[in-house]
């Protein structure tokens, strides 16, 4: 996608806040912290979170294509049930397009939910599965609120209510 080059950006001190790395670091990353950060800074892959379990790859594709050409999407799956569990990875051909989504799509809605994006060091087989004890994402183990788009109450609360 053509990006207009601002004549100001070279001399203006612009803080690119939206495309900075967040504090989150994947604990399962194979390699040193520095290597991980280098990868994140050059990455063309985004982690996308807070999706509804019902949101499809097609919907994500349309939303994230608005930042540029998407290469592939890897849906996050429940490790036991193999059904979507509320996150995915979106990989772009170009870094600049992924940056567009960090700037302009992060924090906006899809299926009425505010999606969160973050840099990812690049998809590795196995990363598509939830890491929670019961198969989904860890956050859905401990959640105490009722969230219709993410299977109701958190898993632990659900177990207690049985």
């Amino acid at each position: 996608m053509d990006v207009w080059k601002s004549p100001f950006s070279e001399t203006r001190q612009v803080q690119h806040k939206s495309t900075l790395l967040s504090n989150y670091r994947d604990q399962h990353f194979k390699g040193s912290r520095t290597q991980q950060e280098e990868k994140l800074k050059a990455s063309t892959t985004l982690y996308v979170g807070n999706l509804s379990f019902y949101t499809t790859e097609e919907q994500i594709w349309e939303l994230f294509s608005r930042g540029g050409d998407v290469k592939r999407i890897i849906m996050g799956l429940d490790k036991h049930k193999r059904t979507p569990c509320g996150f995915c990875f979106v990989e772009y051909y170009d870094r600049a397009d992924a940056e567009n989504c960090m700037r302009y799509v992060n924090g906006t809605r899809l299926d009425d939910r505010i999606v969160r994006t973050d840099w990812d060091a690049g998809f590795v087989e196995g990363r598509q599965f939830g890491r929670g004890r019961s198969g989904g994402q860890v956050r859905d183990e401990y959640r105490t609120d009722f969230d219709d788009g993410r299977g109701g109450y958190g898993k632990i609360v659900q177990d207690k209510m049985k």
Partner: protein
Amino acid sequence: MSRRRAHEDDDSDSDDGRSRSKRHRTENIDIEERLEKLILKVGDKSSASLESNLEGLAAVLEHDIANYKTKIIRILCDVVIGYPDKMTVYTTLVGLLNAKNYTCGGEFIEILVRDLKDVLKACEFEKARYMILFLADLVNCHVVSASSLLSLYDNFIEVCLEDNIPQTRSDWYVHTVLYTLPWVGKELFLNKENEFNKLLVSIQSYLGKRSKTHLHALKVWSSDSPHVQEDRLDCMWAQIKHLQSNAWTERLIRRPYLAFESALQDALQHTLPNIIPPSHHEDALYPLPVVVFRMFDYTDVPDETTVLPGSHSIERFIIDEQLHLTLLLNQYERKDCAATLLMFKEEKIPLNYMIIETVFAQMFRLPNPPTVEIFYHSLILELCKLQPSTMPIVLVQATEMLFSRLDSMNTVCIERFVNWLSYHLSNFQFKWTWEDWSEVLKMDPMAPKAMFVRELLTKCLWLSYHKRIVEMCPDEFASILPAEPRPKFRYHAPDDEIETETMPELMYSLRLTKSIKAKCTPEDVLDFLKEIPNPLDDSVEHTHNPLAIDVFVQTLLNLGAKSFSHSFAAIAKFNKVFKELGSSDEGQQCILKSMYDLWSDHQQMMLVLVNKMMKTNLLSVSAVANWIFSEEMMRDFTRFYVWDTLHASIRKMNKQVNQLQLEVEEMKDKKEEAANKVNDGLDVDENVPTEDDIEALEEKLDTAQSDQKNLFLIIFQRFIMMLSNHIANSETHGQEVNTLWFKWALDRLRQVFLQHHSVVRQYNNTLETLMFTSDIDFHILTVFNEFQALRG
């Protein structure tokens, strides 16, 4: 440990002179950084008044100028381009500095003028414009003499008298001069009235002679009702005339120097050195002409305590410019951008209306918006978040207006309107009073409003799901709703097995399904496909077997129908089969046709699959272009996804060429660098590209460039054929040529020219002599002429 390193270690151990000088150096850097910070900060929000901050900073700089002159002047020159939003703050600062230290002011001018000459030579016109504006405002601060600014302007206006130059060149110089007049007009008028008037007369006579052929191609609306869509220069001229009639007085520009009148008035002024515009050359690309986007006038604003300045008033110009600049400067941070826009504290002005008009002006800018569309979409969301009780009302009003003016709206802009509104509604639970638009149900499906609603619902579907679209629309919308996106598989096996056996195609598909499910190899599939008899006439040899292709493509893609990922995996696994089946252009046409027959109800799937297969080189960009103009696709010819697909193919091609160009340049640089190293007697890395490497890569680039040219020629050729046929047919049957279909098709042709104008202009000669010749119908030729006028 290297010798060098050991040496450094020695240094740090002993407290000799070198170490002290190092410490001194770091100290210098500290002070330089501190000065830079102070300069960049002045004019930002602060508890002290701007005047006292400026005074304090000027005193600091005056004190440090003896030791840090070079650095200070460099920073001040950099802020000219970097902080145009604080331009008058910095001109005042330079003014104060000049009043205290005349030499320093002179050196600043010298360096800024040198910078200006450099950027003009490099054709960086946006930067040049801000530098010239800065120099002009320095007249207000008693740094530059009014007469020397006028002689600079005289040099600029002389460009209008040059022969054989593109109009964009003289336009730029004239626009730049006009652009500064809201700031400096009054001083020029007071000090040099006669010379200034002469300048204005020259400008007026130039404006009267300009060609406006480009205008139509750049207008968002072809109709001038209710608002005239003017060329930017004409509009600016009217605004400047308005300023002149007010004795060059306006009340909106922040002018901090006025508070320092007494400190500045006795300062000596500098004479600008003679600046002559660099002469025109073939590669100089001047900014494209712009049409001013107007959406609202004062009658649209219900709040009677505010008044929207008229479109030819100088106030409209000043506010518009500040808003545009705010968007450009904050384009990377939508939240900051929204907050900054809303901070404008101009009283009695309907700010929300002006902001929305500016955002749409940029979003609809032709041929391309200044930045990615999604920036504007998300910015509008932020504005609604910050002004939840007022902004959505303005937005609804704007949307209704845009809708009511769809009939004369440029197709590309209709597309952008759909892109924005679908995204916006998706963020607001698709809440909209759809029944207000039920008029479209009775319209010709090709009518712009009907097309708009259909495409909007399609995009809403892509962002949600079919059931939701059905539920959000009134029942009577059923006729215009997108179909449920399901595959239309040709080889569904009937329940009756005997019946299946009597239909050989079904048998092929069934057998293929079984093999694929049993994890067969691509080679197995190829062997199997060879068994399928070719339905084409067997007296000649054929490059492809349409039945085999159809059975394979339909069966495989139907198996992968569950999601994009499933389809991609299927295509990747049988990549070899696709390669083989699509080894001829006819084969690729068949693949596309079979895909379309399966997925014609799922346009997004078509778009995504075709894109993927182009990217993985299973389909050539020219095959895709030919397919779009094929008989089978006529049904969808005006649908938006088709044009998404075509432009994706063009973008893919352009990207490939650009990348190869970069690689060739890099390789050459590397080789040259190595040669220089050898000359200097230095060691060279092992991976120095050879002459052969470069030649091989250049050959690749040549091929890509001819593919690229071929693609555009195919597209133009097919357009000309199709449009000419339409015209001929209408004439034979005595029917109207200007049908709705014809308008869509012409606009799509215009879009190819405009959106890729920098590539297409390379083929100007070929197009002019071989395709868009004088025997072509004027409807078609006009589009070409408008395109040529763009850089003309």
